[in-house]
């Protein structure tokens, strides 16, 4: 398994960026990337729920706020793949099976060192950049509604 590298942070970053990007964005870039790895699902894709917890007053004891739909998938790369047997996982809010499967597939492929470099630079980095751009625009739209207080000078 020397060709597999498994530092945990890049996995967490990939999972986050892929879960926050739209499935269409991922599919377009993934197709361009051209990594082809036959795989099969070993768990799911299946849709269920995650119970979301809040905190009293934002910082205090946890409480159960309510649930959201969540889809998960786990895939294994088939024998012909350079990282045969690599197991990948993916989770995403909502009910999109293909989205969860893609995240799991990317996770599995990224266990191949050379692929991981390409995935991080040609898939994850641009998606992250697009995410930051759209977030920055939303933040500027909110910022435009910020109140500038001024004091009226009344007579002496």
């Amino acid at each position, binding site marked *: 398994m020397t060709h597999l590298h498994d530092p945990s942070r890049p996995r967490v970053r990939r*999972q*986050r960026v892929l879960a926050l990007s739209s499935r269409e964005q991922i599919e377009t870039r993934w197709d361009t990337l051209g990594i082809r790895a036959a795989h099969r699902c070993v768990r799911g894709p299946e849709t269920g729920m995650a119970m979301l917890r*809040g905190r009293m007053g934002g*910082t205090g*004891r946890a409480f159960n706020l309510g649930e959201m739909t969540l889809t998960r998938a786990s895939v294994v790369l088939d024998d012909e793949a350079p990282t045969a047997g690599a197991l990948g996982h993916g*989770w995403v809010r909502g009910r999109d099976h293909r989205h969860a499967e893609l995240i799991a597939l990317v996770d599995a492929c990224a266990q191949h060192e050379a692929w991981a470099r390409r995935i991080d630079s040609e898939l994850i980095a641009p998606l992250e950049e697009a995410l930051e751009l759209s977030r920055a625009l939303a933040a500027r739209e909110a*910022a*435009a509604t910020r*109140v500038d207080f001024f004091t009226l000078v009344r007579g002496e």
Partner: protein
Amino acid sequence: MYVAVKGGELAIANAHRLLADRRRGDREQAELEVDQIQGQLRLAVDRVMSEASLYDSELAALAIKQASGDMIEAVFLLRAYRTTLPRLAVSEPLDTGTMRIERRISATYKDIPGGQVLGPTYDYTHRLLDFLLLAEGETPAAEPGEQPLAPCPQILELLDAEGLIERERDDGSEPADITRDPPDYPVDRAARLQMLARGDEGYLLALGYSTQRGYGRNHPFAGEIRLGQVEVEIFVEEWGEAVCVGEVALSECQMINQFGGSREAAPQFTRGYGLAFGHNERKTLAMALVDRALRAEELGEEVQGPAQQAEFVLAHADNVEASGFVSHLKLPHYVDFQSELELLRRLRREYENRMHDKEEDAPTEDSL
């Protein structure tokens, strides 16, 4: 006598067909699409997600369409769907301090880090019908500011250097879950907040309002209200750490209320808390008022108003349960009613007999 009867299958089938026809409306008009509801009736969608206690905007929009806009019916549909799904995970507690702010205001501190950000609000609109929306026109895009938004930290903890406001601390306890263990009164604050979060907005609004009118007064100030997106993390066993699985929109209200204190503790402002899915500001204000009212006992206050009576408030807050029990009155009660009729007839016979006996016993003119 009552004889069991069956029937109505055809009537029911035709009633459903009629309902579908009326829901569709005039065929000359384009059919309303679910993604239009999802995109353009966002606050209705958010309310349905909140009260159904399931965050899924597409399904909430579908429920609204299916229910012809009847919000309580839509909540019922989504709540029923919820029961078909397995629970795959429990999230890490959402950190509203890291929220991507769309709106954030404070009614208690004017100058706050990040500022007063009005966001997409109906406040300050004149509540005049906008006839331009009747005409087909292009809506201009939002105007982005030149500067990005400055960080907006949670201000209650930040600005209260003197410790005049009660602090909320995590003691690491596992919260009750009313979807797994039905509430056994009295319930703790975690269970109360879970029930309020899915409670009917109109009901909570009325109860919150009642505290302001004097039925359990607690002198509230809106310390901070925020609306925006928060990332959801779940802990993954395989990786030994929490991963982000997406974002949810949340509304949050931090209410500051009048003093608690005791012989041992100095007087302090106390707090009420409201948190809800989506853009649901009024709901969170009402929830925070009621949360604070329900802390009466804990804070040594006399329970005077309906909003302070936990079992009364919580047992009637869920509109799926409430509408279910009220609506069951529409089901056939032929046998029940028949037995009531029998009883009433017997009572009347007894009454008539009594009256008859009285007449016979009464002295007649002759006997005088």
